[in-house]
């Protein structure tokens, strides 16, 4: 279901919602959600992300990988790390959070489930530190300052340290 509908302003479903968005003047997009799968997706999906975030894009080669850096109008910087045609890591920083569903793509469900599983016995507000066999997500900060990264450990090119993804 989620994969076939459009989202607008990250807000609502369907034609009515989209119409309302046009009225409110905050034109984000109406792209199908399945195009947003970036982490673990093809390097070509970087362009989809750029369009979704209405961001500027700057790409550079660093050793065994390529970094695509985007900056949104709201000041969020997203860096997507690709090698062998696949995005193996993403990092972000800025006053707001990026759309995690968009950035994590098919990994978002696993991320959400891990978050909920963690709010366990002894409680409190901590940064996010999720280390599943196939997914690592770290995020910290506070209102008006968020920073984090996510990567697929098995896809890290040889010799690339986890902390390079930032």
């Amino acid at each position, binding site marked *: 279901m989620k994969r076939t509908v459009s989202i607008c302003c990250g807000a609502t479903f369907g034609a009515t919602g989209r119409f*309302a968005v046009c009225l409110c003047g905050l034109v984000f997009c109406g792209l199908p959600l399945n195009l947003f799968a970036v982490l673990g997706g093809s390097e070509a999906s970087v362009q989809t992300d750029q369009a979704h975030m209405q961001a500027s894009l700057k790409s550079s080669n660093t050793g065994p990988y390529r970094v695509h850096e985007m900056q949104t109008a*709201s000041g969020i910087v997203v860096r997507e790390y690709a090698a062998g045609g696949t995005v193996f890591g993403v990092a972000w920083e800025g006053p*707001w959070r990026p759309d995690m569903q968009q950035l994590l793509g098919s990994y978002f469900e696993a991320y959400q489930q891990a978050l909920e599983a963690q709010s366990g016995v002894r409680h409190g507000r901590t940064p996010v*530190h999720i280390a599943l066999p196939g997914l690592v997500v*770290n995020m910290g900060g*506070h*209102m008006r*300052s968020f920073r984090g990264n996510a990567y697929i450990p098995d896809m890290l090119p040889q010799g690339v340290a986890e902390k390079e993804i930032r």
Partner: protein
Amino acid sequence: MTAIQKCLVVAAAGLSMLGVGCGGSSSGSKSVITTTGQNVAAIAVNAGPDGSYVNGAFVSVTVCAPSSSTCQTVPDILVDTGSSGLRILSSALTVSLPQQNGSSGPVAECLPFVSGFTWGAVQTADVQIGSENASGVPIQVIGETTFPVPNGCRSNGQSLDTLQALGANGLLGVGEFAADCGPACAATGGGNPGLYYQCPSAGCVVAAEAVADQVVNPVALFATDNNGVIVELPTVNGSAGTLSGSLVFGIGTQSNNALGNATVYTVDDFGNFTTTYKGQNYPGSFIDSGSNGYFFLDSATTGIPNCTNATGFYCPTSTQNLTATNQGTNGASGTVNFSVGNAETLFLNLNDSVFGDLGGPGQDFDWGLPFFYGRNVFVAIEGKSTPGGTGPYWAY
């Protein structure tokens, strides 16, 4: 090393002890806790309303329907210097408050936190904390079901809209910013981060929200003592069951809230300063009473093992005594000594909810509630004048 031992070491080094506190730091203001005054509200550090919280500082907040005597005192609201604005679980709220309305419909907000989001209606209340009053304060009533959570809000991860998820009846954001979002959310177009929604019957859509209508740090709207707060908590040696302290309103506005010899650390546009650890600078560092430990760097960088079961915390084989230096954008700097114990060992004592040595991995340095133990921490609000200069800044 205990705080007393630290004092002895400093004294033995022949340094002047005049005016220097011994609250677990080698610098900072003397940690005397103010308990009386109309600008003082009691803080309790305890397990919170669902009995599971660790290092949570709670206060009671009274909310009233505007210009009325229809009021309710809500206990167990978490004091959060890392956010701005009052947010209360609808399940904890019995008083009926008026809904804020925009041009297209009722206003609601999706506020992203690190671990998830709060979603709910923006309503208006008169707010009383201690004996301080603010009128017509926009607050967020979270977890109420009139407006379903939009899909774009869910993309932030986990909903914090229940007592079980939040571990508190609400959040009192007394951070450095006044409005929670600021000018970005008042803008139209792509620069708007999309926190505020208007909710006509067709569904909620992102909308611009004027700064004056945004959910706001209530302290900034107090009639007096409105330029910031002091969080005052006693020293903890290791762990404790509970703690009592004070949330003091105003900086240098009364005889009980002077800066004294506290050092002012100004911050950048994001509310951060620089922490230096082992020669490396971490410019995205901050002080946050709403974080429940010292969260910093990662296991690979610190050499401290992550816990196996207590995910998100460090589990060293023995307590690590560490030192870092904080530096404000004004160039002021001071060292901080802190200790990180084994979280899984600490948590074995289910009677304790205060852990002075709790730490874990994070982004740069997040100086959470243990930093406040034995140290009076001043938080000056942006644009507000104080004897230490105009906010925003921290001082301790």
